[in-house]
């Protein structure tokens, strides 16, 4: 099971639409393989700092910052596939 965390702030207009598209990709791969968590950056700023998030939105996969802005659907898909291949 891999963990996808999306760091953004509530009310971020540009994030909402893009996040829905990306979440759909993750769900397509299978909810038994991927957990998706929306992280409110204002509530979990210490955690965001710990992962090295310098701006929002950003995406971490399995606790590692992978995208410092929202990626294209293809790039997220590739990153998830790569991570799934390494996950026992």
């Amino acid at each position: 099971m891999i963990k996808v965390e999306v760091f953004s702030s509530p009310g971020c207009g540009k994030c909402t639409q893009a996040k829905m598209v990306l979440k759909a990709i993750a769900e397509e791969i299978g909810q038994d393989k991927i957990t998706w968590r929306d992280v409110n950056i204002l509530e979990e700023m210490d955690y965001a700092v710990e992962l090295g998030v310098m701006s929002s939105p950003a995406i971490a996969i399995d606790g590692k910052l992978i995208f410092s802005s929202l990626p294209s659907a293809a790039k997220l898909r590739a990153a998830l596939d790569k991570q799934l291949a390494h996950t026992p």
Partner: protein
Amino acid sequence: MKAPALHTIGKLALATDVTSDAIRYYEKEGLLTPITKTGAGYRLYNEDAVRRLRFIKQAQHCGFSLAEIRELLTLKNSDAACCKDVRSVAIDKKLQLAHKIKALQIMSQALTELITICNDEARPLDECPILAALETSMADKRKKGTSHD
């Protein structure tokens, strides 16, 4: 009707508690422009400049760099932008500050450790454990650097 009052750079500096040099620098950086110049070439500013300088000062107090203040001023004057765009800039700034605070805490902790190992203030300088620890850690770093080559 009375014409709006114009300020020389000196008066503007006095009214906003910003130095004349800083005002000229902001002008060079494109953050502020005089509304007109006198025949002799002296800059004249209106009340908008006073408001803008106060805005710049306040934003600097919140940690914004001049480049970021320029971005905020652009958003302020953009019809397409709205409050959430400004909020997003503020959130990113807060995030950057949180990173800096963390880095400072790590530095402070390193100093606490150094201060703790120096338990005898009367020691001669060549036995100072703080200086020794700094030299050792620098040598260690150099060694690590060489091993990567």
